[in-house]
């Protein structure tokens, strides 16, 4: 019975991972674009990115998730709850990822842009070859934090009926009358996932660290 129990929740784990694997990269893509617009774009682009970030970060993720869900699974765009939920989560995360990348770009410093331009690079070349490789390195530790937040926040799509870890735990709790075992297992799985992600990114950060001193 216990093995059935666990395998039922583990199937949800695959969904949780899938939701995260859609939400995080799509948030990264949008966040990166907005960070570049904010840092190097003109006045209009800068204002737009700043307003987007402010709006997204000032409303609870679950509220945004419902709003975005009803847009993404409406008449105009009609995605199923899994895709609508995952992409909505990505949009919410994009604002936070934008702030992470913006901070990283700023801490690389304007001197690197100056030096790249002085060699004859265009702004775009400088961003691609000089600024991003350095900014992305700096962004890994704070991004690791955002990755665990998105992983945990993937439990929010439970509210849309996506059968991820939490939803399955809730179903088990109802049918077996063992809430502690059900939610405890869910908690344990989340812990293991977040731990693995953080360790993986720590390793990546260590591997890409620039050497100092001979």
């Amino acid at each position: 019975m216990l093995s059935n129990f666990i395998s039922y929740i583990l199937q949800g784990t695959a969904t949780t991972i899938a939701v995260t694997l859609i939400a995080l990269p799509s948030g990264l893509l949008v966040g990166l674009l907005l960070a570049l617009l904010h840092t190097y774009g003109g006045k209009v682009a800068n204002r737009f990115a700043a307003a987007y970030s402010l709006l997204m970060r000032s409303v609870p993720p679950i509220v945004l998730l419902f709003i975005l869900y009803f847009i993404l699974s409406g008449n105009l765009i009609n995605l199923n709850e899994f895709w609508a939920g995952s992409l909505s989560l990505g949009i919410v995360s994009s604002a936070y990822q934008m702030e992470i990348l913006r901070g990283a770009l700023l801490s690389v410093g304007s001197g690197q842009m100056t030096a790249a331009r002085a060699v004859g690079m265009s702004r775009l070349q400088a961003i691609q070859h000089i600024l991003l490789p350095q900014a992305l390195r700096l962004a890994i530790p704070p991004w690791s934090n955002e990755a665990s937040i998105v992983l945990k926040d993937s439990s929010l799509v439970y509210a849309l009926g996506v059968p991820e870890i939490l939803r399955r735990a809730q179903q088990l709790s109802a049918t077996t009358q063992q809430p502690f075992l059900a939610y405890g297992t869910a908690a344990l799985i989340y812990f293991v996932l977040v731990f693995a992600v953080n360790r993986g990114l720590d390793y990546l950060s260590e591997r890409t660290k620039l050497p100092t001193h001979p």
Partner: protein
Amino acid sequence: MTDSILEARKLTKIYGSNVIFKDIDLKVAEGETIVIIGPSGTGKSTLLRCMNLLTKADNGQIFLDGKEITAPDYNEDQVRQQIGMVFQNFLLFNHLTALDNVMIGLTKVKKLPKEQAREKAMEELKRVGLADRADHYPGQLSGGQQQRVGIARALAMDPRVMLFDEPTSALDPELIGEVLGVMEKLARDRMTMLVVTHEMGFAREVADRIVFMEKGHIVEEGSPDDLFYHPKHDRTREFLWKITELYGKKEKEAGGNP
């Protein structure tokens, strides 16, 4: 049109209500080394940044090989390829090795094939005496070595002119010599150079012409001999006297302190 490689005509830069420099005329002839001296905050560095269009001048014109590069739709990236620049704080690309720092302009801007670029970059590193540091990252190099890589990076593009913006001001005293040595060699090889520096020894020994700038104006210019021994203006005399006195003291202290 002219025999000068780089020329500024009536160049003016203003930040808000603050006039950085006004109506500057400056000609740099082929193979010439010009040293710009003057008190801090007189617009020397800004002038240099205007010359390769990193900063936009508010008025006046700049000519490179007789062509006006300040013309409205002139390709700025093209201009900067032909004007090398060395910065006070080195500004090496921190995520690249010494070799890649020198190579990247060749591969990404000049679009040379990798092998050819590598060869050329190694040659430039040899020229500044750092071939054995090719695979070191900036964080693994001393200030003097970083600055020499910075010089190699600029040289690799085969520039018409090299601009040096206080290249030794951020260096520990014992590291200044190696950078000045490289610059001296360049000057001897008839590289065209425009140098902002406080190194009076270098100015006196290496410069063909010294320009003394103060408060956004060129006060006086001439050969090192003229400026050091027969300055026309009191301000020039005063400035040079102060600076050499400072250096004299330093030398005395160094002499008395074995």
